[in-house]
Each structure stands twice: as structure tokens, then as C-alpha cells.
């Protein structure tokens, strides 16, 4: 109750007022700004890294090449095999853009991941959804839809149950689960950091008198430090999960199940 009374209205944590464009469809707020700054950071790193072609990579070239290699090995090849290498540019873009958007959650002065708003996870999930359906249609033709929801080896009697479940899980739930997983994790992380930051602020700065507070005040601060580190892990992990699930979905769409 005490913590709840300290917390601001939830709108103050997630609802950002427009910086430009008023309340129109083109309203440009802090979330949109972070998306573009992340875009600029991604482009700066990989553009600069790809301009240098030193035989022994150093500095930014090393970072760019290691990042690209990491995605190729751990996402493209891991999920799709050798033919997944052609997808590495897309998956690398997806991973690093999501990561740079997530990592704003611990950048002082910003401290808000743009993915803690549902819009960006949703648009990315829809993009992944469209991608794997598109790949399925290109590779298998219209039969892709039936192949996807009709797993081989299922007795006919069970098909009445399995086919709707498969349809629901593959074509309706996937974009939703992708979006919600990313959004919910980043939102939870943002809330946890906010709670610990406000508790620290209240106990150490606003009400710094009394033995009780002197004893207990460091605890939320230590929690804040720990969860800040944890949030870095969450930022990386959620970007990775989103990317590898997209890779798995695309891989599934490439070949009909036998």
C-alpha cells in the first residue's frame, strides 16, 4: 500500500505526450524519437563497421562483424540451417534494433524502453507474421496454409480438433504472443526499476530521517542496482527470443511438414 501510494499514475510511466504532430496519427512522441535514435545508432555502428575492411578487425569493425557473426551462428544457422545464412541481414537488423530500443530502459535520463509500449512490438510482430506467411506462400504456394495446420500422422478423427488448434496457434496467436512477450517483459522491467528508483528516492532523499529509514534505505538502492544489471540481460534476451522465434517461424514456412 505504501509503495502503491508512492507510485505515480500509470499514465505518467507509459503515456508520453506528443513532441510534434499534436494528437494526430502523426503524433511524434518520446517512443517514436527513441525508435529513430535506435535506427541511427544501428546504422552508425554497422555502416562504420562495414566501411573498414581491415584483414584483422578492430574497434567498430570488430563489433559489427562479431554481432553479424553471432546472429548468423546463433539465429540463422541454428534455426534454419545453412540456407538461413541468406536471412542473417534481416535477423541481425531485427535483433540489434530491438536491443537498442530495449536498452533505453537503463540509459540515465531516458530510462524507458520504447518496447514497453505495445505499438512497436506489435508492428514488429506483424512484420514477422507477414514475413513467415509470405515465405510460406512463395515456397509452397497456397497449399502452405493447409500444410501448416494439418500436421502429418494425425488420425482423421483428431484432425477436427488439431486443425483448428493449429490454425489458431500458428496464424492468430503467433503475432500476438511475439508482441506481448516483448512488451510485457520490458514493461515489467520498467515498472520494477521505477518502483525501486522511487523507493530509493523516497527513503534516501525525500524522507531521510529516522533510524528505520537509515537501516532500510540502502536495500531498495541495492535492488535498483541489481535490477539495472538484470534489465541489460532482459534487453538482450528479449531481442534474441523475438529474433529466433521469427527465424523458427520462417524456417517452418519454408518446407511442408512430412
Amino acid at each position, binding site marked *: 500500500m505504501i509503495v502503491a501510494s508512492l507510485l505515480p*499514475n*500509470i*499514465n*505518467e*510511466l*507509459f*503515456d508520453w*505526450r*506528443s513532441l510534434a*504532430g499534436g494528437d494526430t*496519427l*502523426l*503524433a*511524434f*512522441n*518520446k*517512443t*517514436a524519437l527513441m*525508435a529513430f535514435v*535506435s535506427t541511427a545508432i544501428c*546504422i552508425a555502428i*554497422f*555502416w562504420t*563497421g*562495414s*566501411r573498414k*575492411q581491415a*584483414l584483422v578487425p578492430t574497434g567498430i569493425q570488430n563489433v*559489427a*562483424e562479431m554481432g*553479424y557473426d553471432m546472429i548468423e551462428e546463433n539465429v540463422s544457422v541454428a534455426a534454419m540451417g545453412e540456407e538461413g545464412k541468406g536471412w*542473417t541481414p*534481416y535477423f*541481425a*537488423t*531485427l535483433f540489434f*534494433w530491438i536491443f537498442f530500443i530495449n536498452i533505453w530502459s*537503463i540509459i*540515465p*535520463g*531516458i*530510462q*524507458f524502453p520504447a518496447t514497453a*509500449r*505495445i*505499438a*512497436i512490438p506489435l*508492428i*514488429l510482430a506483424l*512484420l514477422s507474421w507477414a514475413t513467415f506467411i509470405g515465405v510460406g506462400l512463395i515456397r509452397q504456394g497456397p497449399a502452405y496454409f493447409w500444410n501448416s495446420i494439418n500436421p502429418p500422422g494425425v488420425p482423421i478423427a483428431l484432425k477436427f480438433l488439431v486443425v483448428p488448434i493449429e490454425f489458431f496457434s500458428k496464424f492468430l496467436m503467433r503475432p500476438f504472443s511475439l508482441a506481448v512477450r516483448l512488451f510485457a517483459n520490458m514493461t515489467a522491467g520498467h515498472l520494477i*526499476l*521505477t518502483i525501486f528508483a522511487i523507493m530509493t*528516492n523516497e527513503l*534516501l532523499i525525500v524522507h531521510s530521517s529516522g533510524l528505520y529509514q537509515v537501516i532500510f534505505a540502502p536495500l531498495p*538502492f541495492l535492488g*535498483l*542496482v*541489481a535490477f*539495472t*544489471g538484470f534489465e541489460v540481460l532482459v534487453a538482450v534476451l528479449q531481442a534474441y527470443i523475438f529474433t529466433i522465434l521469427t527465424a523458427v517461424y520462417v524456417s517452418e514456412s519454408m518446407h511442408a511438414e512430412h
Partner: protein
Amino acid sequence: MRIRRLLVVALIVGVSSAAMSSVAGASGTVEEDRACVEKVADAKQTPDGEFYKALDNCRKAKSLIVPAVSEMLWGGLAFLIVAGVLMKFAFPSLRKGIKAREEKIRSDLEGAEQSRIEAEAERSRYEAQIGDARSEANGIIEEARRDADRVRKDLLAKAESDSAEVRQRANEDLQLARDRALSDVQQQVTDISIGLAEKIVEHNLDPATQQALVESYINSVDR
């Protein structure tokens, strides 16, 4: 050392998070707050239940799972830009560089392997040559030993034969000298004897008879 740095960074972020918790918060606009107050003011005369309901509605949080279309548009645009630029310009170049390096490393490794195989073959060839040379040297040494042995034997034989020859020649020379000396002595004895006999039996014997007599005598003496 890395852990210490990580802790320092986490500490800095933590401190700034706490310090900026009020700064970073997204507060509502003044207009929204004024509108809220007006709504509650309108409900001021209503029963308590409705008043609190109006108050709750005014402060009600916006749904977190309703996406803001503007954010979807801007977010989608930002992603398309980053995807377009990176996939068109950055990643192909990056990939080309990585491929080139992989190729170079592969070819270097293959070259090194080839060199190793060649060196191995060369070493085997050298070892075979050394083996051949060693056996050839052994053959030469053996032959030289045999030659030396033969030469030694030849020399010994020659020395022995030379020595025998020298000895024989010396014996012959000795024999010759003895014969000559003996002959000289015989001649001198003969001469002396003749001379003596002449003196003794002067004119009794003719010279041929004397000679035969003396030689017969000397031969008997010689034996």
C-alpha cells in the same frame, strides 16, 4: 577487473535512475489535469458514489495494450529505414569482408597444409638421400678398406718378393764375389805356384802341362 567495471557502471546507472526518477517520468499535460478538475467539478453536486466514479474515471489509466497508431507508424518507419539501409548497404559489405577473410584464412590454411605436406615429402626425400649417402659412404669405406687391405697385402707381398730378390741378388753377388775372389785367388795361387814351380823345376815342364797340373791341384784344393 571486468566485474568491478560492470559494478561501477551498474552503480552509476542506479544512482542516476534514482536521481532522475522524477525527471524521466512522463507526466500528464497541464491541459489534461485541468480537464480532469473540470470533470470532477461537474460531478461535485452528484451523489458520493457518482462523484468518486467520475474521479476514478478522470484518473483512470489508459489501456497499456491498446496500441498507439502513431507509434506504430513511426516505429514501423524507423524499422523499415534501418532494415533498408543495413540490408542494402551495410550488411552486404560486412558479409563480403567476412567472406574475403574466411577465404583468405582458408586459402592460407590450405597453403600451409600444402607447404607442410611438401616439406614432409622433401624431408622424406632428404632422409632417403641421407640414407643412400650413408650406405654409399659405408660402401666406399668398405671398398676403401678392402682396397687398403689389398694394397697392404700387395705391398707386403711385393716387399717380401723384393726382399727375397734383394736377398737372392745379394747372395748371388756374394757368390759371384766369392767366385771371383776364389778365381782371383786361384789365379794368384796358380801364378804363384807356377812361378814357384818354375823356380823349382825350371824347364822340366812345358807351360801347358804346368797349367793343367796347377789347375788340377787347385780344384782339389777347392774341394
